[in-house]
């Protein structure tokens, strides 16, 4: 039981590292939290709500995202979109990611 949990934690840590990049990459156009969650899941990355929402707030506090409340279907939704600062950071993160993938492919092949 404990062993399974620790394996799950390792996998979780591994995935957590890519969520920031995944989130920034998918917010070129505005999305609200739940639509982003589904978008990421459709692309194959299941993210827990408890991870995504605080992350969105943190990225906004860091100036990498901007958000605005919109009233849709009688329900207010908070839309997030990548900021100018986030747009500057994204290519650097993509390059870093490509480097990591290359190195890890070499190591694991």
């Amino acid at each position, binding site marked *: 039981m404990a062993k399974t949990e620790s394996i799950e934690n390792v996998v979780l840590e591994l995935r957590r590292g890519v969520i920031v990049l995944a989130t920034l990459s998918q917010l070129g156009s505005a999305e609200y939290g*739940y639509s982003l969650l589904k978008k990421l899941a459709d692309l194959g990355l299941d993210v827990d709500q408890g991870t995504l*929402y605080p992350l969105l707030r943190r990225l906004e506090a860091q100036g990498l995202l901007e958000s605005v409340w919109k009233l849709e279907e009688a329900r207010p939704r908070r839309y997030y979109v990548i900021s100018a600062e986030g747009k500057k950071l994204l290519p650097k993160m993509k390059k870093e990611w490509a480097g990591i993938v290359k190195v890890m492919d070499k190591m694991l092949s």
Partner: protein
Amino acid sequence: MNLIDRYVSEVGKHLPLLNGREDIEKELKSTLEDMLEDRAQNSGQARDEAMEIEVLKEYGSPQKVAQTYNPHPYLIGPKLFPFFLFVLKIVLTVVVSVMLVLAGIQAVTDTPFMGADFAKIIGQGLGSALSAAIAAFGNVVLVFVILERVLPDKEIGSFDDEKEWDPASLAKEPDPDSVSRSELIAEIVFTFVALAILNIYPQWLGMFFFTENEQVFFPIFTEKFFQFVPYINIVLVGKILLDIYLLRNAIWNQLTRLSKVVIEAASLTLTVLILRAPDIIAFSAESLANGPFEPEQAEIFATIATYTFPMMMAIVIIIQSIELVKAVYRLFKMRRETA
């Protein structure tokens, strides 16, 4: 209030006290509504309470959800922790040493070297040292908990010297306008401890003497000294505020230099006023003779205390005068350089 509203409200109760609590609650409600709508569409069933329960169960307990929004899950963060340990070691060493020295003086002057009274004084001294250490620990933790929450993240980040440290800086002349964070933190802690002793533990400002049947406490200061405490508090709080401001800004400017001059001048004035005030010291031959002392011993002890206090105050005045002159010199130097 439906189940979703009750859940959102319960999460809100456990959210940390930060800006945006209402925002988090509003977003959470919106997300849950989206989830329910999605689920109803996919299953082809109408939304009902069973579906709400299912969604809420999936989302997790309110405490767990609220915890994910907590930016400070710890009292003192990893970046401030090394400074906390640094200051704590100094404070504990000073406090425990002072308490043990006081107990030692008391044991030597008050009783024969052996016997129950001697053991009792040593035991009491160790007990006092332990309780003082625990109180000092609590106060240091409190100061750092406040610093952790008052200082902006980037300032706390700059405490992490390892990332920014450049070996080449060893050869550089220190910038006279830069501040030493560790000194400031140590000063904040010591000032805070002084405030705590003066206002919360004034009973520590005295000595216990043990007779055969009872222990007698002699306060060092009279009520006249405590009339100065509000003014001392103002100066000490001013010092703490200035130190916190300097911690945030990391460099001296004309305003902080001027504030330093004002605070040093106020400290010096206060010390002179305390020294000049009559009947500040509570030790007198008459009062001590009521305790465990013989009249002659009481006379000697009172004389020592009466002379020691002005001498100590004179030393404090000299140190404060030097600090004031330094502060004035640095202010004028800065003004000249910026003119």
